[in-house]
């Protein structure tokens, strides 16, 4: 890997933003840092999945939240949990890893389902279809209370993941007054990122990866060369959705409870902001984008406190999202390739 100017700037920015956390927080900066790194890991993973769709294959997917949701719901419903208004307890369940595997596969299959419209539809229509399908998913999950717990959500599932937490890890983390279960989720999400990146690196350098990029650049040419462009698109949808499903599981474990309100379209837009910031089409871009993004997000409450005398939760959220919207707009207008993307690899226009 050649250390180009882009990389230097990105790494410096990332270090600077982590440094900012220490400067701006006098009390317990480490705790805040690990909190936001956990979120950064989870959202970064989701953004890597989205990048397979948009960056690599040029599929305009605005239903990413639903892939995360499918992964999370399927996995949690298969392991011991409590759900619904009465907190109905399900004690038996599959082993965690098997449930996780089924969850990821389900997210992939949902990706296949959502990918079917992509066969026929041009980019902007695909955006509308995917966002609508994600909303249908969310409305159904909220409505099918007997299965999914509806608005009351799912709780008491954390042990399945936390049981693998080694004792020495707990001792080590507690020494710094951190929350062991959260750091554990964060650590696992970052390990997953490395794992996924290694696989993706191999895949994108393979003939298959080149064929995906070719679909983005010129679908007709791919067809003319005898490749099955439709199947390539569907494979891309499945791969990215599976990664998003894994991220969704981590998100649920980080919150400790699963709510339908987590999977609103805004979740998708968060992931989009991270992907654009990190660099569309760049494999490792979302990692850096995610860290910088979460530093910005987690430090906005100070900004909000400057604007409002006694900012309440709603105003904090408001300031955050104003920034997210602004970030998406400004990046898309002035630097659509983000930190690490390549401008010539962007799909910004469809006929």
């Amino acid at each position, binding site marked *: 890997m050649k250390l180009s100017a882009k990389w230097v700037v990105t790494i410096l920015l990332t270090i600077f933003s982590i440094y900012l956390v220490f400067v701006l927080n006098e009390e317990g900066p480490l705790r805040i840092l690990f909190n936001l790194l956990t979120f950064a890991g989870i959202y970064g993973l989701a953004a890597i999945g989205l990048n397979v769709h948009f960056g690599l294959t040029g599929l305009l997917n605005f239903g990413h939240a639903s892939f995360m949701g499918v992964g999370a719901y399927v996995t949690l419903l298969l392991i011991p949990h409590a759900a619904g208004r009465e907190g109905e307890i399900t004690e038996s369940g599959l082993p965690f890893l098997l449930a996780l595997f089924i969850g990821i596969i389900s997210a992939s299959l949902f990706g296949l389902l959502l990918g079917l419209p992509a066969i*026929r539809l041009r980019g902007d229509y695909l955006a509308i279809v995917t966002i609508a399908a994600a909303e249908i998913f969310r409305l159904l999950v909220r409505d099918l209370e007997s299965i999914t717990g509806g608005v009351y959500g799912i709780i008491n599932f954390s042990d399945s993941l936390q049981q693998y937490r080694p004792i020495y890890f707990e001792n080590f983390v507690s020494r710094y007054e951190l929350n062991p279960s959260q750091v554990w989720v964060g650590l696992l999400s970052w390990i997953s990122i490395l794992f996924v990146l290694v696989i993706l690196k191999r895949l994108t350098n393979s003939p298959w990866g080149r064929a995906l990029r070719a679909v983005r650049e010129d679908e007709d040419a791919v067809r003319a060369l005898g490749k099955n462009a439709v199947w390539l698109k569907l494979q891309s949808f499945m791969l990215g959705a599976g990664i998003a499903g894994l991220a969704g599981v981590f998100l649920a474990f980080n919150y400790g409870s699963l709510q339908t309100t987590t999977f609103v379209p*805004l979740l998708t837009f968060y992931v*989009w902001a991270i992907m654009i910031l990190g660099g569309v089409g760049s494999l490792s871009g979302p990692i850096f984008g995610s860290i910088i993004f979460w530093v910005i997000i987690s430090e906005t409450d100070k900004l909000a406190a400057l604007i409002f005398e006694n900012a309440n939760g*709603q105003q904090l959220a408001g300031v955050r*999202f*104003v920034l997210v*919207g602004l970030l*998406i707009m400004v990046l898309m207008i002035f630097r659509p390739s983000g930190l690490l993307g390549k401008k010539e690899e962007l799909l910004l226009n469809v006929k």
Partner: protein
Amino acid sequence: MIDQLGNGLLLGIIISVASVALSLLYGVTRIVNFAHGEIIALGAIVTLFFSGPIDSRVLFLERFSPLGMSFVTSAIIGIIFCGVFGGLLELLLFRPLRKAEVGNIAVLVVTIGLSIFIRHLYLLFATGRVQNFPLDLERRQTYLFFEMTPRNFKVLIAGLIVMIVIGLFLTFTRMGKAMRAVRDSGELASVSGINSDSIILFTWISSSMLAGLAGIFQAIINDVRYNMGFLILLLIFAGTVLGGIGTSFGAMVGGLLIGIFVQVSVALPFMEGHTEAKNAVALAIMILILLFRPQGIFGQKERIS
């Protein structure tokens, strides 16, 4: 069922007006405007600001003396405000993007960013509280076989009149013809001496005014909230798609149909106890239409794949 039909017509007329606006804008500028919902909310919020008594006002608005203007005046101000806002969006944001030849996918993402940005400015400055216009409560009455309040009935009639006016405008006036010409082919239109920049500006203004009107309708029937536009945006897309993207008359019918589908689906047997999922029905219809008849009911065949 009949009750739901009345509700459906009301929701339909809101979606219809908003869909026509969205469809006009898409037809002329080829922009899929995700910020459309925010212009809808703007109409309602500005109207509330001018008509509301001080106690229903909010945050920074509390620092102003009560305006308490008459409702109709406030509504007109609200609509004009939306028009100005839409015009400014075109002049300050979208025209420069068009001149810089920014791709349509990039513009779509920009409208999404814009939507999040504006919506949360509303949350900050108009609060997340659900509010109502300062209008008296009315008793429901029977019109033909629908039951609704006289005010909602007036909304229905006003909406229908607006539709007819738009239809006449597009068909018979020079401006309407020019808009349709730019929609069909921007290049041919400019060759025949139509200034497409000013047509696009006019489209932004009129589309935003219509959106503002739809917002006021929605707020009369339901309430004012900061995300009211985003909540209804997908239904508006559904209406536009169902009628045929870029066709104004299609959008009118499509919007009405979607509104009726949504409300009537509540009364279907398998939907019993699942009223929350009613929007899912409309969205599913939209997806199916896009897959199997992408040109909608009234659209002409066009390449969208």
